């Protein structure tokens, strides 16, 4: 590619012919984090403590100290996050090749199924139907699962019952198919995890985490605005913080979308 094309790309962003869609939730203390049984370790929610606000603690400046887990809010999962990816090379956020943070996306819409059944799990048949309409999923593409779950708030978003959370995700076969048959770059969802709410009862448990990270690929979760993306043609910019041996990181996820004429 010549320099002119890259500058043309920047110009297209500047003039709006490529629109930039924010797929990120605002990091805030009230955003739910994943819930583990209380005797297990917990992911810290987002917290902000003021250092100063133009006051006696710092007269001319406002700033905060933050605390949170690596998997708080809209976040990136590195392969090392899961036991299946623990021995892979370059599997933590600081060592993943940076080119991986820019990749195209296929958006698979199961929002109608999820609206009817909160436990709906994406099947291979769903993916084949999607390909029949939009073409084969190219290698090294993100597959982003649109469920419209991001439009739900608070209690409806987590959808917790006495038998755990109920939210949509992929079935084990679908994840395996995406990895083995389509060599996807990663898997992204609107829900708290890349897996369904009841995925601890799957075989293997948490199949998206297990297969995606076991193959050195990436996860994105707590995404929003997937309904603004075309089924194909969007490019995702998703660079996690460069945390030494980090298993993931909250991040800003942006989608570049050619403006529809």
């Amino acid at each position, binding site marked *: 590619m010549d320099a002119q094309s890259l500058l043309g790309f920047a110009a297209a962003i500047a003039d709006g012919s490529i629109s930039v869609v924010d797929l990120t939730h605002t990091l805030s*203390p*009230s955003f*739910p984090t994943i*819930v583990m049984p209380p005797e297990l*370790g*917990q992911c*810290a*929610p987002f*917290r*902000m*403590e*003021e250092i100063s606000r133009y006051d006696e603690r710092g007269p001319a400046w406002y700033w905060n100290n933050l605390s949170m887990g690596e998997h708080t809010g809209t976040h990136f999962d590195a392969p090392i996050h899961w036991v299946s990816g623990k021995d892979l090379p370059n599997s933590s956020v600081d060592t993943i090749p940076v080119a991986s943070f820019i990749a195209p996306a296929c958006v698979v819409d199961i929002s109608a199924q999820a609206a009817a059944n909160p436990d709906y799990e994406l099947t291979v048949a769903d993916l084949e139907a999607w390909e029949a309409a939009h073409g084969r999923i190219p290698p090294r593409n993100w597959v982003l699962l649109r469920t419209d779950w991001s439009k739900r708030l*608070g*209690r409806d*978003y*987590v959808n*917790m*019952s006495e038998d755990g959370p109920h939210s949509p995700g992929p079935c084990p076969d679908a994840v395996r198919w995406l990895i083995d048959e389509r060599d996807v770059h990663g898997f992204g969802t609107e829900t708290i995890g890349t897996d369904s709410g009841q995925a601890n009862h799957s075989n293997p448990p948490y199949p998206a985490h297990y297969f995606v990270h076991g193959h050195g690929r990436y996860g994105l979760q707590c995404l929003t605005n997937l309904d603004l993306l075309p089924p194909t043609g969007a490019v995702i910019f998703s660079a996690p913080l460069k945390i030494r041996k980090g298993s993931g990181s909250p991040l800003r996820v942006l989608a570049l979308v050619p403006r529809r004429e």
Partner: protein
Amino acid sequence: MTKPLVRPKRKDPLKKTREPLLPHGQRSRTALGLTAAAAEGRFALQVCTDCSATIYPPRDACPRCLSLRIPFKDVPNGGTLLAETTIRTSIDVYFRERMPWRVGVVELDCGPSIVTHLHGDAREGERVRMEFKLDRSGQAVAIALPERDTPNMADDPEWRELTCDPKFRRVLITDGRTGVGQAMAKALSAAQASIVFVGLADPWKPFPGEAALKAIERVEIVPLDMTDSVSVDDIAGEIGGRVDILINTAEHVRAGGMIERKGLNVAREEMDVRYFGLMRLAQAFGPALRARGADGVNSAAAFVNLLSVYALMNWPAYGAFSATEAACLSAAQSLRTELRPGGVKVMNVFSGPLETEWYQSVPPPKVTPDALANAVVDGLRRGLEDVYVGDIAQDVRTRLAVNPKAVERELGA
């Protein structure tokens, strides 16, 4: 007969809030023996080990035999009101705005005569019960009560000045998710609190007892996350000026000592919920509590901490937890001094293991949430500062007074 308290009208926003004033609080070091008894609701005087004389006021030597061995001991509190008078004017800024004020002389069955505040139903020539209470300065004063309870006796103005009765006061219970929080809401509603605000963090997490909690009369659920400074500040901004009694029910109980804990996450959560949570509450609600100590019938009255008795001596089976509780106790002592200018009490309620899921493996005796809640209401009604609920807490308290090192060894055995 005590005139029943009338539920106060809403505050006139054009009127200046009366500033809290305190009665004189200086006491000799020896006289603090009375304060120690009053803090726990005991009636104790010095009793001479050598000649058995009961001594009042507190002295450094026995006035009868000059013995220096005159420890404070619990003594019978019956007596006869010999004389009474009503003071109608005073140059003391605290008392002059509380006139008229009855005082009297009571001859105690155990010997001494004592100048005392009088409950409205205590009559000259009749039998009375004497109590030491902490006044707004935090020091012990004597008050004579009628021998038997009288109707509405808790509503007596002189008595109510010394107590933190929840009746017609507005209460904030910081965490309603737990059994203790829910029992507390029930008990405070039954104690005629006019509003029972109940804090809930993570409203997206359902919890057992939720519907029953919301159905309790005069309960208002408010968003409050003790681990989030912004959340605590936000809710204090909204209701801080209407909280007269704050009861911190936030709990974080986990077993394990210093070595067994792998890493600091659990300890951090513990400190965040308990110690930093307490500090967040103090910073967010403290200023308004302190400013509203004389704000009429529903003046700010108390800040209640529920503490493990293992704050007083570490129980290694719950070692890291005990350390957090000790931090909370120390913080509460500081808070007590900081709230005193407002005449607002800090009541520490100590208990041993509770009948809750986090003490599942601990054998009885355990304190039920209802028992703890009732102890809090009782302590508020009596204006106590330190309450020991249940056998274990009382046992630890008693043994610590004798030989703290023995308690340390035995808790670790």
